[in-house]
């Protein structure tokens, strides 16, 4: 298998794996985890009301565990998909990496291995903790994640050196053929759709940073201060805990909508480049393109609507994510059917 195909297979598989994990996380962990954290916070305010310091500490230890559980799963999802995007990007650059076939393949395998081990290490942080660790705050799972991150950096620096050599005039002995220019309907729609999605994501991010970010930070501080005063005076802080939970949810949906719409835009553009590798008939290719772009809009829009429509919108957003995932798996099936025509062309040219 050529280095480019290692990166295309690995990249799509990492993205699909990261999205599947994200969907499972959204359906089975996210809301339940948030609910439990809210319950623990409410219990902590009640411990404050009765002057029970030990109780407060116990509930905060629980909250810390819940937040770590939530944070590591979210990070595993984002890092796995991001590594997949980078793998696809590197696949595009392979014709310009002036190393031998063996070195390019080793770099590709190193990158895909790092992309797999990094989220695995992050996922395990919550479960492994500091067991048998020689360090005071970093456990073995963190060490695995950090080492995998270092692998990714080494592979990326290697690819950059290969590009540098290419621009200095060195050529690989068995270069990957440059992808033929693809002006098919699928490629053009993915490119245009992806560009628009990224632009929408940037605009939404700017709007969020300008109007919401500082207001959210100020509101969080105010709610916490008021919650402590109410609890210390023996009152019930249930409403304030609910307000605090709603604020966290507001922040989460804004950030999720911003990041997902950009990621899906990037994915659409990347998939537009690899259409020559998708060996499906035109009807199926168009179907996967439409499904991917529809899911790419549905997920962020309904994530944003979750604050108004509740779990119904959350369910529709999950379906949007599933649509993107299915389209991705359909595309991967097309790549798997790739007959090696480009490689064969390269062989006959020699």
């Amino acid at each position: 298998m050529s280095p480019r195909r290692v990166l295309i297979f690995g990249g799509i598989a990492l993205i699909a794996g990261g999205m599947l994990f994200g969907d499972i996380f959204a359906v089975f962990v996210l809301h339940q985890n948030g609910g439990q954290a809210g319950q623990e916070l409410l219990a902590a305010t009640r411990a404050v009301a009765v002057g029970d310091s030990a109780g407060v500490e116990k509930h905060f230890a629980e909250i810390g565990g819940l937040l770590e559980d939530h944070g590591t799963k979210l990070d595993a999802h984002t890092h796995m998909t991001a590594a997949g995007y980078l793998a696809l990007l590197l696949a595009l650059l392979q014709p310009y990496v002036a190393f031998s076939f063996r070195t390019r393949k080793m770099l590709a395998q190193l990158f895909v291995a790092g992309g797999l081990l990094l989220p695995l290490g992050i996922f395990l942080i919550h479960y492994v903790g500091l067991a048998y660790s020689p360090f005071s705050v970093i456990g073995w799972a963190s060490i695995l994640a950090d080492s995998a991150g270092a692998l990714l950096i080494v592979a990326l620096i290697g690819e950059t050196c290969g590009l540098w050599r290419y621009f200095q005039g060195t050529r690989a002995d068995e270069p990957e053929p440059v992808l033929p220019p693809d002006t098919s309907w699928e490629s053009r729609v993915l490119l245009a759709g992806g560009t628009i999605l990224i632009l929408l994501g940037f605009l939404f991010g700017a709007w969020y940073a300008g109007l919401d970010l500082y207001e959210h930070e100020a509101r969080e501080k105010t709610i916490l201060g008021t919650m402590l005063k109410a609890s210390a005076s023996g009152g019930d802080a249930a409403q304030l805990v609910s307000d605090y939970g709603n604020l966290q949810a507001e922040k989460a949906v804004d950030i999720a909508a911003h990041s997902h719409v950009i990621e899906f835009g990037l994915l659409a553009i990347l998939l537009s480049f690899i259409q020559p590798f998708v060996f499906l008939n035109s009807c199926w290719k168009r179907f996967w393109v439409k499904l991917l772009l529809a899911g790419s809009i549905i997920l962020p829009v309904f994530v944003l609507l979750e604050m108004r429509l509740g779990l119904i919108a959350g369910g529709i957003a999950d379906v949007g994510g599933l649509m993107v995932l299915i389209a991705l798996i359909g595309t991967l099936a097309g790549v798997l059917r790739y007959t090696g025509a480009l490689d064969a062309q390269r062989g006959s040219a020699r």
Partner: protein
Amino acid sequence: MSAARKLLIFGGLILAALGMLYGLYYALFVEHQALDRMGGSLATAFVDAAERNLPAAQLAVNEYAETKYDYVRQVDGHSHWIGLAMVMIVLGVVLERAGFTERTRFAIAVALALGSFSFPGAVLLQTFTRGGALVSALAVGGSALVIGAMAGAALGFARQRSGSLSKS
């Protein structure tokens, strides 16, 4: 290979490596400590409140807010550097399809590169200046450059499309 493509691809790779190196440094030396400090100060606030020491509780809430202010921006800096690096590399591969002159494409590439380096950099600098006007202006300017470049690229792709349609 055009100058715009070289700038975007090399700039993107350097930016991705920079973002990853920062992420590795952050994960090893900053993140765990920041998370411990955030959790610790919030727990301290509640314990102080339980002991009816509200001034100390408020101080702990302030410390929590400050640590979280830094944490959010440090994570944002890391993720935006890598995200924008990917956008740069992708545009580097595809920008030649934009229906503009080479000079305009290079201007788009310069704007995207400058914005992609400066916007997350300014976000990180906010942790030192606490929202100073200059750094905030740099962040706003950087993000405006990125948005402008992306809008320019979208327009270029649309022009290329309509150009090829009218030819056909």
